[in-house]
């Protein structure tokens, strides 16, 4: 995906008629080898400037970043990029998926992010992820600090204990979309606009069988980084954390633990917001994010 494509598109993203609005987002499919298998991965982007690589939550997809990719002010400074993890959104599962059970590991997740960044030839991107994405940015800051100019964790915690039987998420006698949305609906802040709450839930309702549950293997088990977060060097990879007040999955206390443990990290609790800030209340979230992005631009390691 070239910068040229994006700039050409920007010509047409203003209103082309009284009724039609064409967004500046351009999506493409990328063929990558991940974990030794060919994959077809959906990537979309908007804007031009410093690359901002955005990672969606468990069981969801790039649509969570729709508001960021439509914010004219942001797009003047940033090339905002998001991709659907394999099995999610418009990315396919690998061939033979029907014969196995999907489980996201720290290793596979890291490899997918680095592979997409390599394929797009991103130079010291700022990486920003939410929930499982907020967890993996901690792994990236620790293990691959040289690859990223800065990192932003949304709803970041070092570990989350499961508080319900995860088997409910993948049963032939329970509708997977309905249960996934039911599980996460309370994670959305009660003040978030209904339109964006239900858009966010729709993404969950569209997830494939067992995909949300497979992502939680990383979130609840394999991605536990409590013992190692102290080793993150924010001089090598500057780090910011933003967490919603109403999130009971990754709680403000979980983020406060990171704030106290990681030297040089900057963190803030977002009042009234929940687990999906960029999707559940984009306008409010941008008031928190924009100052962080300006700080990240200044601190970015190049």
């Amino acid at each position: 995906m070239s910068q040229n494509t994006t700039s050409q598109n920007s010509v047409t993203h203003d209103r082309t008629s009284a009724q039609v609005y064409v967004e500046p987002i351009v999506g493409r499919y990328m063929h990558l080898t991940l974990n030794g298998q060919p994959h077809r991965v959906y990537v979309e982007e908007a804007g031009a400037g410093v690359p901002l690589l955005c990672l969606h939550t468990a069981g969801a997809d790039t649509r969570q970043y729709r508001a960021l990719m439509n914010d004219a002010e942001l797009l003047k400074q940033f090339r905002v990029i998001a991709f659907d993890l394999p099995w999610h959104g418009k990315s396919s599962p690998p061939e033979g998926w029907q014969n196995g059970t999907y489980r996201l590991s720290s290793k596979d997740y890291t490899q997918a992010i680095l592979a997409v960044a390599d394929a797009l030839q991103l130079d010291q991107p700022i990486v920003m992820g939410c929930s499982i994405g907020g967890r993996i940015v901690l792994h990236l800051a620790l293990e691959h600090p040289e690859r990223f100019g800065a990192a932003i964790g949304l709803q970041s915690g070092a570990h989350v204990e499961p508080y319900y039987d995860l088997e409910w998420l993948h049963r032939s006698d329970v509708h997977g979309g309905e249960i996934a949305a039911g599980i996460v609906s309370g994670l959305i802040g009660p003040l978030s606009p209904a339109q964006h709450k239900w858009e966010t839930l729709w993404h969950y309702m569209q997830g494939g069988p067992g995909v949300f549950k497979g992502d939680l293997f990383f979130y609840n088990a394999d991605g536990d980084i409590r013992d190692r977060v102290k080793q993150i060097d924010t001089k090598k990879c500057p780090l910011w954390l933003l967490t919603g007040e109403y999130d009971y999955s990754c709680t403000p206390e979980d983020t406060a633990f990171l704030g106290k443990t990681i030297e040089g990290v900057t963190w803030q609790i977002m009042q009234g917001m929940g687990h999906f800030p960029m999707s559940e209340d984009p306008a409010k979230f941008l008031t928190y994010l924009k100052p962080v992005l300006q700080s990240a631009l200044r601190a970015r390691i190049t």
Partner: protein
Amino acid sequence: MDVLWCEMLKQKVNVDERLVWRGRHLSTSFLLQVDQAEYLIQIVDGRIASVKKGPFPIADWVFALRASEAAWAEFLQPIPKPGFHDVMAMLKLKHLKMEGDLYPLMSHLLYFKDVLASVRSCEVTA
């Protein structure tokens, strides 16, 4: 103690045609406990068929939701405090217990969340 919001469930839910429709494949009985007060709620095809106040020598319920009066009172606020704003939040933070066969609840989780939210503006107890 009369728990007014429990007694209002039938009226609040059954006038909401869309909510009843969403529960159209559900018939079950569940227990709501508010401190020591118990209410047995019967659902038939998504409609609240009856709300009975305990105590019950023998209660025929499939699952139970148990919490203190204070926890339910906070849950019922128009904008509850974090941790009290959702039954799953209350479960994780140990403000609420779920017991029994959770299949009806989990297979209709969004429905039950809206059933309970339907009484958010009601008086709590009398």
